[in-house]
């Protein structure tokens, strides 16, 4: 009998922001099934009008299917132009293999001087997940049970460097092997 314990670490958030009045967030599901199509959204919190450029480094195992805003692909990078929009989505196809992957990149406010970084992790797993998230601001713990919990990358303007982290989820599964 072998016991297999799978540990999944979800959500790493790294945010930097300069003088822009904008907050730009990347939102991904924290867990997706292998080969599943899923959406990643970029959300802009700020007063319209806005013009924002985004560059994302996509793990090579993932396939970009489409975006709801003008985009270009170069190697593993995707760039987006978000004009007068507060939310755009890109559809990706997850790889067949399991693992934890990171989408990172940057955004540039084209109307003002602001720019910042984006980062989110996503796990590809065949199993249903129980996610435990920790809210760092209040140090309380929330337990959420879901198959596709959403991980959010938040940006806090005015702080040169903000690190928000880190909930840890543990999922235990027992598998019988012969």
């Amino acid at each position, binding site marked *: 009998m072998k016991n297999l314990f799978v540990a999944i670490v979800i959500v790493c958030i790294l945010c930097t922001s300069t003088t822009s009045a904008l907050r730009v967030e990347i939102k991904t599901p924290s867990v997706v099934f292998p080969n599943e199509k899923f959406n990643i959204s970029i959300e802009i919190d700020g007063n319209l009008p806005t*013009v924002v450029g985004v*560059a994302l480094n996509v793990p090579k195992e993932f396939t970009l299917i489409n975006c709801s805003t003008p985009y270009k692909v170069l190697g593993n990078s995707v760039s*987006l132009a978000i004009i007068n929009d507060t939310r755009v989505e890109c559809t990706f196809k997850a790889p067949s293999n399991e693992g934890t992957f990171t989408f990172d990149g940057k955004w540039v406010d084209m109307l003002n001087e602001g720019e910042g970084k984006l980062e989110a992790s996503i796990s590809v797993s065949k199993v249903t997940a129980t996610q435990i998230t920790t809210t760092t601001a209040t140090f309380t713990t929330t337990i959420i049970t879901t198959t596709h919990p959403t991980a959010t990358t938040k940006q806090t303007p005015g702080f040169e460097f903000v690190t928000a982290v880190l909930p840890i989820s543990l999922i235990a599964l027992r598998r019988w092997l012969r």
Partner: protein
Amino acid sequence: MRKVFIALILLISCIGVVSANDYMDLFKGDNRITEKELANVITDYMLGSSTLSLNEIRDASYVYIHWNGEPKSIVDSANRTITIYKPIKRIVALHSDAVEALVVLGAKNKVVGVSKYTKESKRQFPELSKLPSVGSCFDPDIEAIVSLNPDVVISYVRWPDPSKLEKKFKLLGLNITVIRFDFYKGSTMKEEIEKLGYLLDKEENASKYIKWFDKYENLVKSRIPEKKVKVYTCGGKPLRAFGEGTGLYDLSVMAGGDNVLKGREGYFDVDPEQVIVWTPDVILRWSYAGGYETDDISGMKTDYEEIVNQPGFENIPAVKNGRVYVMSADLATAPSFPVALVTVAKWLYPDRYSDINPKEIFQEYIDNFLHINYNVSEQGSFVYPKW
């Protein structure tokens, strides 16, 4: 037929979005930046494959959002069409009236260079007088202007001659826009403020100023009597006439005067006998003396005495009746024009303006438009005899 069809399809697919290698490429074809074109340069930039700089893309974004993607055009006071394709960020003002207009419009942060005369105006322009000098409107220092990398240079309509400015820029292959606005004539002031406000996206401030201007212009218009007084306008010296097209002439006419120089344009010398024949009721003299920078009235007094002591002038009604007035250039021919207008109107028709104190209007202008700590009751010397 099939080949033609394929060629057509290929052509259409190429038309879609043409890559912009240069900022001005964005305006090729339809003379505007479309959302597609903007998205194209942004996505290229974010992938590191754009030939445009981040600043250029920010300019393009600004133009797309705030100007509907289109360039802005005006006709300046030299009757030339001026078109700008990106927001104006750096301005060289070759004369102090333009500096004052830029302050009125709330655009002083865009000024990067001023004339040597503005540099002397430390009270009126406490911050801008510290900027680098670019010579004068009569003799601009091209090297100094170029070193400041301006988007736009603002100069008078008459000065300097284009051979000293536009033609030199052209010879050097420089793409610096020269806008010729006077900002010293009442007849063109509102239009110039409105146009510059439009180019600088300062329409709200321009409207505020124009509304204020209209208020006093209409007040003066409403009090002009049917029988007008005769006015002679001069400056520099008593016999240097300021005729049609000059700021002082405009001022005298808008205030309700019947200027004896009507039909004679510009600045010119006249014989003293001619002035005596005209028998003006009022003489207005424009003076370089006085202004914001000095509390000493003696320079303007000297200008006044030059007129009243002119041989033969003692029989002119204006001199005989004590109606000779001197006004500083800082007040008479500048965006403060409405103050000068009310002042001159009161000089021409004192009975009709007993309820109006021009000094209060001047303080209102200084507080609301120049935003400087300046008390006109205690500082400066703007008119003679004193208010």
